[in-house]
């Protein structure tokens, strides 16, 4: 009994001492001002949190897209060379060669806004204004047959847009890997060679020692 009481006192003293010496953890870091936080906060969530004021139409977006995006993503978003396509592929996700685009795969329209604003055009990121980003995103949604030609995107209307593959994602409850003691002797597996990388011949040339 006495021993327990002593123990409690010691831990109380420790807690009090720690708290007095280090009010917020170790006292490192300095408070961030609301202006500093606002200047860095560019992330946008599916519920619209983070979307700024402003708006942009499909028609405005078409002009901006041709100017800033088409060189890499193609005039209609079909993709130029190996740059990614931004449209097509709807209904292809079960195919041998699925085409994943905003229209066929992306679950949220807000993600398009977030991604374009933070990282496009490639090589000149964060150069579009909020209005311009709304417009380009409206145009991309139109290219994907998700909105009509008269659509105007803003902080209210964009989160309300439902992309075709919105319900296409799930989380696995349990790992699906085998578990437990595996076969060690005379295992029933096929040991026939059915494919050789050498035959496909796409490995870069290199000196083999």
């Amino acid at each position, binding site marked *: 009994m006495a021993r327990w009481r002593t123990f409690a006192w010691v831990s109380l003293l420790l807690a009090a001492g720690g708290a007095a010496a280090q009010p917020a953890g170790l006292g490192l870091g300095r408070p961030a001002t609301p202006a500093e936080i606002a200047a860095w906060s560019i*992330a946008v*969530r599916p519920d619209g949190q983070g979307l700024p004021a402003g708006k942009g139409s499909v028609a405005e977006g078409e002009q901006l897209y041709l100017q800033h995006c088409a060189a890499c993503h193609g005039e209609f978003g079909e993709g130029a060379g*190996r740059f990614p396509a931004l449209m097509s592929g709807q209904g292809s996700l079960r195919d041998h060669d*699925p085409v994943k685009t905003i229209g066929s795969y992306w679950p949220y329209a807000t993600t398009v806004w977030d991604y374009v604003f933070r990282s496009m055009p490639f090589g000149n*990121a964060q150069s579009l204004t909020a209005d311009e980003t709304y417009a380009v995103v409206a145009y991309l949604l139109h290219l994907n047959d998700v909105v009509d030609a008269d659509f105007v995107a803003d902080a209210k209307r964009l989160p309300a847009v439902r992309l075709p593959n919105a319900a296409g994602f799930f989380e696995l409850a349990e790992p699906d890997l085998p578990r437990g003691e595996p076969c060690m002797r005379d295992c029933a597996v096929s040991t*026939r*060679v*059915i494919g050789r*990388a050498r035959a496909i011949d*796409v490995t870069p040339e290199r000196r083999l020692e």
Partner: protein
Amino acid sequence: MSGRGRNRRGFLAAAGGVLGAAGLAPVLRAAEFKPEAPDWTKNLGPGVDAAPYGKPSPHEKHVIRRSVEWLTATPQSSVNFTPLHELDGIVTPNGLCFERHHAGVPDIPPAEHKLLVHGLVERPLKFSMAELRRFPPTSVFHFLECAANGGMEWRGAQLNGVQYTHGMLHCVQYTGVPLRLVLEAAGLKGQAKWLLLEGADAAAMTRSLPLAKALDDCLLAYSMNGERLRSEQGYPLRLVVPGWEGNIWVKWLRRIELGDQPWQTREETAKYTDLMPDGRARRFTWLQEVKSVITDPAPEARLAGKGFRCIKGLAWSGEGRIARVDVSRDGGRNWTTARLEPPVLPKCLTRFYLDWQWSGEEVLLQSRAIDEKGFVQPSPAVLQKTRGVNPIYHNNGIQTWAVNRDGTVENVRLG
């Protein structure tokens, strides 16, 4: 001192005379004797400071990261691969750690880099690098594997080299601040469940991280293998997320926002989601599951001839420690348990060996890892049964190397 030296020389001369006379060993006269000495044994080499930051031997020039040009549209959003077949032990040299960038490598002066922690916290805080280094540091060895490592191999054997099939993998000792300490400094609000991690590169890379993982074992790292992070690995600050896919280890980390739900960023929706045969996709598949590969022999490390060869390989699991590795020489029919080399650390590469006499016949080499939770690395056939061939990410299937009679080694698929 000089007296002792003279005595010693005298003794040696006398001894030589005696031995020569007895005919026990041939004695060469000084004039005839030419020691076998190559140039580097005769001449002076460069002095100290010839290379203030040392480089590998010039004879190791072929040991480099390599890329597959046709994979990506530009080198700024691309990937290269670690030469696993050239490396020993479990630590990857910093300059050989594979690179994956989405908008090139930014050049960030450390004095200008800040980390902002805000959102659902009591005290939004900004940290300089100097302040972050004042926290009590922690050093840990962990593997980092890109979720797309092996992504080109889902449909069959495609790239003929372990550097390309498995080289989006590195393992170093990271040093930094436990993320928990920084979050505690800011004070978490009750509703906080997720973190947004954002990079300072031109992709402003973002991922959502569940709070439980952040508090468990994540590290804000500023050093790797004892020196500051390499630029291409996130200098001056990157997150270490042990056992989880590389993309979420955000490099050039500048912002952490606490929120009550995930942000559903492009990198966790359009990318890094695993497409299943039914057309739906698994999301938040962060864990890098149990996996192994033989790094020697490999297509780049062929056999010179019959006889002894130590089979060398690497095994790893995001679940924890590697419990066992089995090696098969007959395409998976029969297995022999390999020798694990200490240390066997959680969420870290583990080195395994199996001594072997090659008879010169054709052989199908495989390795199969089992982790401490009992998960077993599956064959490609088992993996494909549930996941099909289009997930891109998280291919941890067993690799087969075919050893041909001429000693060449090939990436093959069995079925």
